[in-house]
């Protein structure tokens, strides 16, 4: 594992952002990690078969392979995904955002599927997230925060899983974020896409692979007037070597 220094901490992880054909949040994520958080970050082309000693792999948002067939269904067969899967199975940190989350579901690294939003609309707006599990490397240190304000931008973010899977997710505390109102109430009216149980983000049982539909990279630069998203990246930096 590489160790670099940044202003956030003594030891900081090296981030790798996978670029698929059709990724379009890769540069936003890179910008936030490098320019806002002063971290070590590189792009990883989807055809490469090495992760270049990165400590955290980010699958960014976008429309990989045009969302053809099913969202994420073709990207999961990109050459780099073999490496990402092995890395995840060995305990490496993998973070899927929006389309990246959809790819993790198709790759079987997280359970469930995404279907079209119940409204059939592409929804692009700020939403609130209740933090259901504050004991993951992605969400530690959110003290005092009951809800995060982070935007969503998707047409297929309607999370679905069978009852057995949902029970497992609940029993193992794998539901990390649920859509909620500003005061952190999980209500039907706060659900922007029809996701079962208002699920917005989940983590695997081992706690090293997380996927979420909202875009933390779009609420990390203070110039945009909201920075809750940066808490997730900071949490990773502060927790994965400790």
């Amino acid at each position: 594992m590489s160790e670099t220094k940044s202003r956030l901490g003594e030891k900081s992880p090296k981030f790798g952002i996978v670029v698929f054909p059709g990724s379009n949040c890769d540069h936003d994520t890179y910008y936030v990690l490098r320019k806002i958080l002063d971290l070590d970050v590189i792009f990883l082309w989807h055809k490469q078969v090495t992760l270049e000693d990165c400590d955290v792999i980010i699958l960014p948002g976008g429309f990989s392979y045009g969302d053809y067939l099913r969202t994420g269904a073709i990207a999961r067969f990109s050459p780099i995904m073999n490496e990402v899967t092995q890395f995840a199975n060995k305990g490496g940190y993998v973070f899927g955002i929006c389309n990246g989350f959809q790819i993790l579901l198709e790759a079987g690294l997280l359970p469930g599927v995404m279907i079209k939003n119940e409204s059939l609309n592409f929804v692009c707006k700020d939403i609130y997230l209740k933090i259901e599990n504050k004991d993951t490397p992605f969400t530690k240190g959110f003290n005092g925060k009951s809800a995060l304000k982070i935007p969503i931008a998707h047409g297929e973010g309607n999370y679905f899983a069978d009852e057995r899977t949902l029970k497992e997710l609940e029993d193992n505390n794998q539901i990390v974020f649920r859509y909620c109102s500003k005061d952190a109430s999980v209500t039907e009216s706060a659900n922007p896409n029809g996701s079962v149980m208002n699920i917005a983000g989940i983590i695997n049982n081992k706690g090293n692979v997380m996927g979420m539909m909202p875009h933390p990279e779009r609420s990390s630069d203070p110039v945009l007037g909201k920075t809750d998203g940066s808490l997730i990246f900071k949490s990773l930096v502060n927790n994965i070597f400790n």
Partner: protein
Amino acid sequence: MFKAKVLIKRRKTILDPQGKAVEIGAKHLGLSNIKNTRIDKYIEFNVDTNNKKAAEDEVNDYCKKLLVNPIMEDYEFTLEEVKS
């Protein structure tokens, strides 16, 4: 060579928002008897072998690994011999 015709159906227990929206159009058209509209996928391709068993195996492989998500979809297919 064989032509494969694959029909992929979303499980009945899973909401089909497209089907639901299209059915609203049917109501607006005054087609009041239309119920349970489901929009599924139909995929066609050729399998370049003369061995039917090998063709079936390859179609199943293609379906299971890529074309179909077994969490929410089922599939069926036919194979028809065609001239290459």
